[in-house]
């Protein structure tokens, strides 16, 4: 929709503008020595300007059809020149016709020949006005699209922030807390020392989540420590069903990584891998430096028949979304599933740029 005709105030302002152009043209026509009185000139310019106001609206569609940024200059100039010439010529011809029509009325006797003698002033004015309309419309379009881009950028920023918050909030599964508290409850009489150890582990883990979650980047060593903290707690609950193997390159421990990026993956390994298995299994965590990148691997076994709870996707989707937001394609997450009969291995590999500070 044409941006000027879209609302009433704009149309009104536009028409007032053309009214003043009509007055200006009257002033130009009057002293040309052809004996046109101001009233006679105005009788021509007013209706002609109102008419041209609408003809110039065509410039907007023209500007939309051949956008500045995408069109070749010669084509641009040629099209607009042709359009301006045609409209101005049409306008001038119509004004001549209008003058002849006015002649029929008493106060405008012999207006036609006198107006013709004034020369094609309206033709040149028409050219100029049409070109101005084109320039104005291009400015309007540029302004609008920059505003749209700004809105969109703002919207994206809000979305990214929301995703980040959701990812962080989803970190601590309340059932993990309930189960841990139940383990402590069981240990209090049977093994008070273990109950205390478990309390401290749980407190360390919660504090770690809160502290690290509020930072932008943390050392990889801290992130791995938190994941191990989590696994230690789950070891108390799952007993001999859970074993953990780790192989961490000391070289990459100082890499700065987004906080809580491993924790949801380790949690997945337990809730969807080890916990549903009758005999449990081993979770492997590996971290290696490759040039300027760090590769982190989390691997766990799973039983196909036990995998009824869908939901593995959520944690991985969150991590992937955060990586995209934070690294813009410089980081990746690969998920691999090897299934052999009922047993399978689930591998998640993260690759992040290693930024040391």
């Amino acid at each position, binding site marked *: 929709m044409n941006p000027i005709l879209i609302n009433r105030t704009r149309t009104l302002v536009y028409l007032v503008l053309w009214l003043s152009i009509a007055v200006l043209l009257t002033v130009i026509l009057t002293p040309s020595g052809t004996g046109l009185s101001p009233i006679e000139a105005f009788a021509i310019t007013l209706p002609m300007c109102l008419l041209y106001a609408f003809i110039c609206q065509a410039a907007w569609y023209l500007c939309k059809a051949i956008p500045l940024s995408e069109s070749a200059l010669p084509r641009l100039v040629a099209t607009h020149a042709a359009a301006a010439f045609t409209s101005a010529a049409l306008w001038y011809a119509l004004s001549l016709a209008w003058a002849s029509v006015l002649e029929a009325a008493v106060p405008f006797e012999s207006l036609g020949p006198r107006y013709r003698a004034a020369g094609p002033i309206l033709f040149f004015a028409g050219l100029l006005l049409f070109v101005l309309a084109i320039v104005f419309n291009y400015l309007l379009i540029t302004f609008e699209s920059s505003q749209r881009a700004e809105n969109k950028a703002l919207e994206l920023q809000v979305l990214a922030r929301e995703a980040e918050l959701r990812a962080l909030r989803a970190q601590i599964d309340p*059932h993990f807390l309930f189960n841990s508290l139940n383990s402590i*409850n*069981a240990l209090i009489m049977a093994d008070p020392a273990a109950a205390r150890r478990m309390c401290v582990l749980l407190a360390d883990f919660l504090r770690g989540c809160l502290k690290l979650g509020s930072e932008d980047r943390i050392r990889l060593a801290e992130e791995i420590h938190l994941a191990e903290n989590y696994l230690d707690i789950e070891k108390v609950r799952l007993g001999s069903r859970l074993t953990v193997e780790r192989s961490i390159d000391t070289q990459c421990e100082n890499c700065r990584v987004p906080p809580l990026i491993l924790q949801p993956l380790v949690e997945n390994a337990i809730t969807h891998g080890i916990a549903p298995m009758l005999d449990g299994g081993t979770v492997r965590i590996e971290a290696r430096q490759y040039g300027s990148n760090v590769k982190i691997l989390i691997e766990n076994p799973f039983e196909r028949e036990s995998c009824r709870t869908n939901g593995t996707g959520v944690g991985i989707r969150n991590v992937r979304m955060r990586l995209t937001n934070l690294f813009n394609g410089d980081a990746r997450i690969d998920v691999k599933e090897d299934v052999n009969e009922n047993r399978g291995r689930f591998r998640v590999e993260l690759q992040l740029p290693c930024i040391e500070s």
Partner: protein
Amino acid sequence: MMRIAIVDDEQLARKLLREYLSSYEDIEIVAECANGFEAVKAVTDFKPDLLLLDIQMPRLDGFEVLELIGREVGVIFVTAYDKYALRAFEVHAVDYLLKPFSAERLREALDRAKARLQARQLLPIEDLTAAARPPGARAERILIRDGANVHVIPVSRIDYAEAQDDYVCFRSEGKRYLKQQTLADVEAVLDPSQFVRIHRSYILNVERLAKLELYAKDSHAAILRDGTRLPVSRSGYARLSSVLR
């Protein structure tokens, strides 16, 4: 004397229940089970009055255990997940304990169980069989109890099911498994785009179908990949063609 079986995959959770229950003189713990298979076996072997049953366990969950035990028993669910609460009440569980819980809360549940046991208001078997799945959900596997053993058959490995008196016989990978159930119940839980009632007595996994033969006017035979011939009724043929189209 109330005979109780504890079913939980976490050793500490079982320990806690054992500790809480040790103060009761009229309660005997007849079995402690670390998974659903053990629970089914224990119910067969020891016939407890009451199960303290965890829901999320490896291989068989608490609801599936109920489906398999096939006898009247009191059940108190013990879990950290309150999302199961509604279903627990649908299957007429005696009570529902959310981890972690106090000894007092357990006492309340046990009192309720005693009252129910005395009034003989236990879990009806038809509720037990319906318990394994939320209403409307499709089965992903079929559970079959064979004495104290449990067979878990993923539905994709079923060739066909055949009605035999009060039982349904499932054919899977050359073996036969009998389950006390009606064919209509089986049909209701299987995915209708994969399993078609081709005959009053047969449900066929359409992926096993090799070809259809016309052997009399209005009646067909389904030939399976392994050569088995199954009768197809007229309405069965209509259902089959609408699925295959």
